[in-house]
C-alpha cells in the first residue's frame, strides 16, 4: 500500500506542479530570454522587469547582472534552499523592436498565467525565429526617410534627389557588407564615404542652391540613435556600465561615419570658402 502511494505520488504530481519549472530549467530559459532581449536593443530596466515578472510567476527569485555583452542570472526558489546560475553571451540579433515587443508580451502572458512554462519555451523558440523585415522595403523606406530629412533641413529639390541617390547606394552597401559579415565599424566608414562622395554632387556639378545640406544629410541615416537613447535610459536607471558601453559603441560608430565623411570631403576636394 505504501509502495503504491509512493508510486502514485511520483506519477501524479500536485496540481500546477507540471507548469512549475525547476530553478535550473527556469534559469536556463530566463538567461536565454534576457540575452535575446539585450541583443535586440531592449533597455536594462525592461530586461529586469520582464525576467522578474516571469520568475515571480514560477515562485522564484532572480538576481541578475547585466554586462555589455553578457548576462549573469541566478535563480533561487522561494525558500532559498536551492539555486542555479547561468552566464550567457548576448545574441547579436541587431535592433528589432518586433522581437522586443513579442518577448515583452510573452513575459506578461506568463505572469498572468495564460502561458505555461512549456508553452512559453515553445513560443520563445518561435519568436527568435522571426525574420527581419523585407530588406528591399527597408532599403527604400530608409532612403526616402533620408530624403525627407534633407527637406526638413531646408534642402531644395536637387538636394533631395542627391540625398536619395546617396542613401540608396550607401544603404545597399551597408546591407551587403553586413550580410557578408564585415566589421560594422569598417562598414559604417565605407557607407559614409560613398554616400558623402555622391552627396557632393551638388558642389561638383553645381546642382541646386543647397549643396551643403545635401552633403550634410547624405550620411545621417547611419546615426546609431537607439544605442544613444538606450544609453541615457540605462543612465537614468543607474546601469552605468551598460550605459557607458552603449554610449561608447554608438560614439565609435559615429566616429567611423565622421571619418568616412571626412574622407569623402577630402577626396572631392570640397572648398567651403
Amino acid at each position, binding site marked *: 500500500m505504501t509502495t503504491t502511494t509512493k508510486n502514485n505520488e511520483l506519477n501524479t504530481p500536485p496540481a500546477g506542479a507540471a507548469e512549475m519549472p525547476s530553478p535550473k530549467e527556469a534559469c536556463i530559459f530566463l538567461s536565454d530570454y534576457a540575452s535575446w532581449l539585450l541583443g535586440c536593443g531592449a533597455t536594462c530596466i525592461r530586461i529586469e522587469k520582464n525576467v522578474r515578472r516571469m520568475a515571480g510567476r514560477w515562485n522564484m527569485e532572480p538576481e541578475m547582472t547585466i554586462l555589455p555583452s553578457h548576462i549573469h542570472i541566478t535563480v533561487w526558489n522561494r525558500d532559498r534552499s536551492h539555486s542555479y546560475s547561468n552566464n550567457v553571451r548576448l545574441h547579436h540579433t541587431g535592433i528589432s523592436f518586433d522581437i522586443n515587443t513579442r518577448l515583452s508580451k510573452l513575459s506578461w502572458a506568463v505572469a498572468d498565467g495564460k502561458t505555461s512554462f512549456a508553452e512559453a519555451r515553445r513560443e520563445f523558440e518561435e519568436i527568435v525565429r522571426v525574420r527581419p523585415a523585407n530588406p528591399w522595403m527597408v532599403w527604400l*523606406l530608409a532612403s*526616402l*526617410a533620408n530624403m*525627407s530629412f534633407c527637406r526638413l533641413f531646408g534642402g531644395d529639390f536637387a538636394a533631395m534627389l542627391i540625398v536619395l541617390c546617396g542613401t540608396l547606394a550607401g544603404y545597399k552597401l551597408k546591407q551587403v557588407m553586413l550580410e557578408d559579415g564585415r566589421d560594422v565599424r569598417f562598414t559604417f566608414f565605407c557607407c559614409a564615404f560613398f554616400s558623402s562622395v555622391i552627396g557632393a554632387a551638388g558642389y561638383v556639378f553645381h546642382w541646386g542652391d543647397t549643396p551643403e545640406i545635401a552633403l550634410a544629410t547624405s550620411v545621417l541615416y547611419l546615426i546609431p540613435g537607439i544605442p544613444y537613447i538606450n544609453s541615457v535610459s540605462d543612465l537614468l536607471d543607474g546601469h552605468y556600465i551598460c550605459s557607458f558601453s552603449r554610449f561608447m559603441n554608438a560614439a565609435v560608430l559615429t566616429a567611423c561615419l565622421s571619418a568616412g565623411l571626412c574622407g569623402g570631403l577630402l577626396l572631392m576636394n570640397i572648398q567651403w570658402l
Partner: protein
Amino acid sequence: MTYLFNILQDGFFAAIAAIGFASISNPPRQAYKYCALIAAIGHATRYVLTHNAWGGMNLIGASFIASLAIGLLTVFFAPRAKCPAETFSFPALLPMIPGMYAYRTVEALLLCLTHQEEAAFNHYFYLLAYNGLTCMFIVLSMVVGATVPIFLFKNTSFKATR
C-alpha cells in the same frame, strides 16, 4: 496661410522620415502609424516654437520641449498599440537630429587641421567648439526629454504590452 502650410509640410516630411527610420529597427507593423503621428506632432511643435511671431525660441530649449511632447505621446500610445514605449521614441526623435550642426562640426575639424596660421586656426576651432557643443546639447536635451516621461509613468510604460 503660408505659416500653416509650413507647419503641415514640416510634420509631413517628419512623418515620412520617421516611417523610414522606424523600418531600420524592425518594429511591429502596427507601430508605423504611431511613429509617423508622434514624429509629425513632435517636429511641428519644435517648428512652431522656433518660428513664431514672439521671437523664435532657442533650438536647445525647443528640442527639449518637443521631445518631452514625444515622450508623453509615446507613453500615451504604447498601451493602445501594445508596443514598448521605446518603439516609437527613436523614429520620432530622429527627424530632430541636428544634422547641420554635426556636419559643420566635422567641417570645422577638417578646416582646423588644414590651417596652421593662428588666427585662422582659432576661428575654425571656435566654429568646431560652437557647433559641436550645440549639437551635443541638442541631442542630449532630445534624448533626456523623450526618456523622462517613460520613467515618470513607469506603470503605464512597462505594462503597455500586457
